[in-house]
């Protein structure tokens, strides 16, 4: 089969790979019909995530058709159209029994600090991802769900991570009616977090970024106010002034490891790999939220240390909430919102590329060319 493979930092290509096979009695093999490139794939692409091996296939956002099932699979059948959450989880360990599917303890032998994720290095379990014609889906009775007949594949693939994560990020903020919410990052997760904040009753939503075309999307898609941090000298001071010197009630960090805004922080992280993440957005969040406020972190950071201003967080009495999103837990409610038309997931898709051109797509997304926000990948077998 054809599959994207990692060849080292900033280098990927498409090559022939063995079709995945059933390795566990509850495995399924899914023929991928849509995959997406996630902002967190760029951390792998840039060589930031420890134990990312040459030959690994990325891709944790994908949907497809069940092509083969293992002997104990009961809940999906060959031919089913399925959407697959980016988390691999068992559904029965201490964490899964309490709804923390993203923290499953039974699927990632390489680390206990993170659960299993498709196509996201050996630190996340060493599973190949869905930027390929076929993918192995372990524990098929708990992960994948049949795509509702009324739902389009483009919408479904965005529910496998980006939309669920943005919605989860807004929830972690514990938003109360009339709260002022600041979202750092106008990428897909930030856009969905901003839109979801309104569903939870926010009184103001302000999205911060430096890319003008993404801020335009935040205004039109997420109905938010926007702030381009390159146009103000001090983003924290600006936000304080804009909120009557109180600060935001809730701040969502939807940026993660490769935040811009501070050259030194970015270079020591993204180029020199000396930090697990550039904490620019996180530090801005700590400083711009009001005392006693809540910070929600859904941007992805690596496991190495980062220079976070923890003293300010402590002195301000902040609540910091964060996790990888337990995707499947979000789906029933999100299906309702999509069906009601409150959220139109595919409205943020800007590019669709064949799998064979995925190297150019990664470069475009990494360097933010052509006003790229979200790219879908179409495998040739789809």
């Amino acid at each position, binding site marked *: 089969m054809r599959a994207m493979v990692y*060849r080292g930092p900033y280098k990927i290509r498409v090559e022939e790979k063995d079709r995945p096979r059933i390795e*566990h009695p*509850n495995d399924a093999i899914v023929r991928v019909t849509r995959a997406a490139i996630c902002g967190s794939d760029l951390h792998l692409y840039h060589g930031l995530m420890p134990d990312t091996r040459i*030959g690994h296939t990325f891709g944790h956002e994908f949907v497809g058709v069940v092509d083969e099932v293992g002997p104990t699979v009961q809940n999906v059948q060959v031919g089913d159209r399925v959407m697959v959450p980016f988390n691999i989880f*068992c559904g029965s360990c201490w964490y899964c029994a309490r709804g923390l599917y993203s923290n499953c303890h039974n699927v990632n*032998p390489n680390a206990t600090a993170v659960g299993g994720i498709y196509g996201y290095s050996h630190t996340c379990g060493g599973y190949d991802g869905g930027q390929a014609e076929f993918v192995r889906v372990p524990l098929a009775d708990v992960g994948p769900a049949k795509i509702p007949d009324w739902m389009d594949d483009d919408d479904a693939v965005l529910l496998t991570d980006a939309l669920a994560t943005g919605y989860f990020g807004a929830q972690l903020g514990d938003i109360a009616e009339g709260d002022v919410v600041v979202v750092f990052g106008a990428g897909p997760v930030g856009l969905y977090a901003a839109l979801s904040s309104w569903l939870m009753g926010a009184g103001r939503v302000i999205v911060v970024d430096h890319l003008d075309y993404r801020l335009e999307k935040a205004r039109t898609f997420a109905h938010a106010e926007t702030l381009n941090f390159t146009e103000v000298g001090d983003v924290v001071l600006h936000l304080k002034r804009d909120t009557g010197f109180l600060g935001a009630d809730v701040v969502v960090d939807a940026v993660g490891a490769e935040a811009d805004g501070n050259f030194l922080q970015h270079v020591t992280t993204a180029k020199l790999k000396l930090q697990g993440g550039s904490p620019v957005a996180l530090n801005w969040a700590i400083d711009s939220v009001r005392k006693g406020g809540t910070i929600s972190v859904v941007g992805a950071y690596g496991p190495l240390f980062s220079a976070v201003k923890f003293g300010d967080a402590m002195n301000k009495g902040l609540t910091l909430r964060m996790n990888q999103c337990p995707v499947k837990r979000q789906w029933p*409610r999100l299906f309702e919102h999509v069906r009601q038309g409150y959220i139109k997931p595919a409205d943020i898709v800007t590019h669709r590329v064949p799998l064979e051109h995925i190297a150019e797509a990664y470069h475009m997304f990494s360097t*933010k060319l052509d006003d790229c926000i979200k790219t879908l990948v179409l495998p040739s077998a789809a």
Partner: protein
Amino acid sequence: MTYTPDKPPLKESLDELRARIPGWGADLDPKDRPSDPKLEFRTDLSGAHWRFPDRQPDDDRRERSVEHQFLTPVYGTTCPRRGLSGAVRGLAYRYSEGRAAHWLLLMLGDRIDAGENHVRSFATLRPDNPVTETGVLGEFSRHPVRSRFGRGRADLAHQWLDPVVVAGPWVAAGALAVKGGRSLVRNRAALAAAGAGAARAVGRLAGRVRRRTSISGEIRAGSR
């Protein structure tokens, strides 16, 4: 207003927001939020029909975190460890995730893995091609100038470093190879010169020995 008990006023009333934004307040009640409460014990939701999943066949070579009691019942099988990078990664997994050595060794293993595979690729029919694999050819059809300039992008301050990160190891490896080659050639020439010099010296010494032998032979013959 911050210095008093009152909250700063909003720009729009809640009624205005409800009218302007589809679905505003649909999840206002925390009970409608799927991740509230954070921990909710339910065993009937996930679809699992086991208390502990069947075990994937055990693989003794499969590395695992020392913070796990055993190899997890399900695991990924792509890209098993091999070569020097595999040895470094194996060493990393002797340390717990709480130790910097664990993560730093894994990062070192990643860099070695890239080097090993680049070299290995040159022995295949499809050697690594940094031009196609970096996707830079996509620049031409993606408005490289309009996308970057005149828009106040903060990332332009460091984007110029990307080619250095990508090409740097190739240039360094090339320079090392050239230097190594030159040094080899120089050493060969030096060896050859040294060999010739040594041969000449040995020849001279042998000549002297022969002459002395013949003189001493003549003296001995004369003394008879």
